[in-house]
């Protein structure tokens, strides 16, 4: 009984995090459409609710009532499993992300994270690597040339950018002497890592964009020029699960950028609780991702690979070298 009670805070935290993460794409799709619209000098969704605020609900109803089509030659089980598999890694990433220092609540100390792993960063990089599985299963199970080619494209991109991404955070780990995210944030007490690791940040940011498959690196779903990639055959709610996963990766990426390079919850104004300050910074990053999306055209596939292997990888290695010399 005692043991079960001790698990209660964790269960509550899990429910909160999962609930928020499941609902998060609703405001994000609205925001993305609004930002897209305003960059193009139009108002965007306006008719459903005040300034289109209920538009995501209308979208959700539409997606749920759409015909859920499975191609005749598809592997039905894998086809159904793939979107769920794609959805798991982004949720797992949030296990290791801390939202603030431990706080006192109802007489007990509550850590503002599900599990502040001491190998948190490694865990996140590893888990985000699993994201490839959903893509590969979706492409394979569809039994369509276009889907397979799209998933191969996507996998090549994910693997290519995983490497510079992993290397770019080594400088941060060297500075903090730890892979625990709360330790990394604590190490930025005086000075944010963006000042000490500008190249590392640049590489992480760009590689992250490619990992989250955002424009200008969204070749898996360049629907206009390449076919919609690995989810060509998907429709209705299954398709939207891929979109959900993509948004969650985006949010996780914004969190990582803030925690690793922008001091996490440190350095906020006194009246703001630290976790709200963290969320503010994360929101700013999400906005920047959307701003980038509606500014740049997408890269060609060979350019994408060139940037990954010939620019970002040497840059991240150089960053490790330079930070190593400076720390000696």
């Amino acid at each position, binding site marked *: 009984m005692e043991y079960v009670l001790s698990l209660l805070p964790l269960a509550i935290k899990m429910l909160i995090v999962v609930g928020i993460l499941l609902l998060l794409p609703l405001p994000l799709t609205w925001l993305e459409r609004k930002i897209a619209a305003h*960059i193009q*000098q139009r108002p965007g969704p*306006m008719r459903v609710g005040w300034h289109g605020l209920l538009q995501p609900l209308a979208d959700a109803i539409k997606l749920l009532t759409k015909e859920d089509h499975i191609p005749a030659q598809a592997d039905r089980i894998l086809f159904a499993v793939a979107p769920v598999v794609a959805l798991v890694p982004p949720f797992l990433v949030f296990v290791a992300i801390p939202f603030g220092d431990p706080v006192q609540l109802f007489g007990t100390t509550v850590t503002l994270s599900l599990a502040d792993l001491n190998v948190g960063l490694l865990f996140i990089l590893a888990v985000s690597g699993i994201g490839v599985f959903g893509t590969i299963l979706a492409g394979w199970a569809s039994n369509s040339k276009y889907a397979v080619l799209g998933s191969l494209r996507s996998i090549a991109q994910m693997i290519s950018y995983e490497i510079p991404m992993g290397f770019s955070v080594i400088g941060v780990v060297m500075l903090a002497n730890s892979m625990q995210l709360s330790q990394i944030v604590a190490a930025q007490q005086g000075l944010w890592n963006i000042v000490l690791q500008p190249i590392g940040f640049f590489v992480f940011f760009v590689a992250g964009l490619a990992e989250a498959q955002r424009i200008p690196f969204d070749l898996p779903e360049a629907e206009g020029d390449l076919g919609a990639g690995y989810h060509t055959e998907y429709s209705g709610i299954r398709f939207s699960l891929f979109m959900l996963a993509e948004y969650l990766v985006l949010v996780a990426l914004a969190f990582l950028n803030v925690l690793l390079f922008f001091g996490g919850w440190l350095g906020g104004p006194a009246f703001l609780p630290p976790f709200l300050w963290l969320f503010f910074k994360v929101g700013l990053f999400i906005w920047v991702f959307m701003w980038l999306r509606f500014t740049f055209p997408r890269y060609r596939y060979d350019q994408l690979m060139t940037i990954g292997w010939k620019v970002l990888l040497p840059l991240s290695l150089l960053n490790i070298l330079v930070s190593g010399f400076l720390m000696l």
Partner: protein
Amino acid sequence: MARTGVKRHSWIGRIFFADLLAGLRLTLGYMMSKTVTHHYPDYEKWVPYQRHRGHHFMNTNDQGEVNCVACGLCSVICPCDCITVIPFETEQGDRRPKVFDIDLARCLYCGLCEDACPADAIKLGQEYEVSTTNRATLKVHLEDLIAAPRKAEDGGLVRPARLDSEGTQRSVLRSGPSTGLDWWSRIRRHK
């Protein structure tokens, strides 16, 4: 790869992505500027310029008679053959149209009929909401042409309007001062 218009940047500009930043600055400026979209048909409606070629109407003289003398020039010049004119003679001995039909489903709003008209009778106005679900209503007769609205005094403006969802299913201008918004002034242009 076309090389025209490509600016050669210095290597410093290349390292710090000067062109990418210029693009970001431009879109940020757009994001901060006002939207230019009309809230049509719910709140706003575009009143076109007076030279706009929209819905047809028929001018009448001071006695309330149509100006048309049923000479048939409009019907002859019409490139898509959508005007039917059948004349008759009134008691005063004037030549007037007995039938004056325009098939708007065929009309391409070229304005040749109003150019050809010697009596200043057939005109193209600024109405543009002629869509319908019934093809028969696209055939307009002489009464419809006389009753159709004349040219508005102003044009080239966005004016407050509302959707008449019960009646005509059209966006109707709201009463009040006819000061509209100059839409073109809202568009952000390069200096």
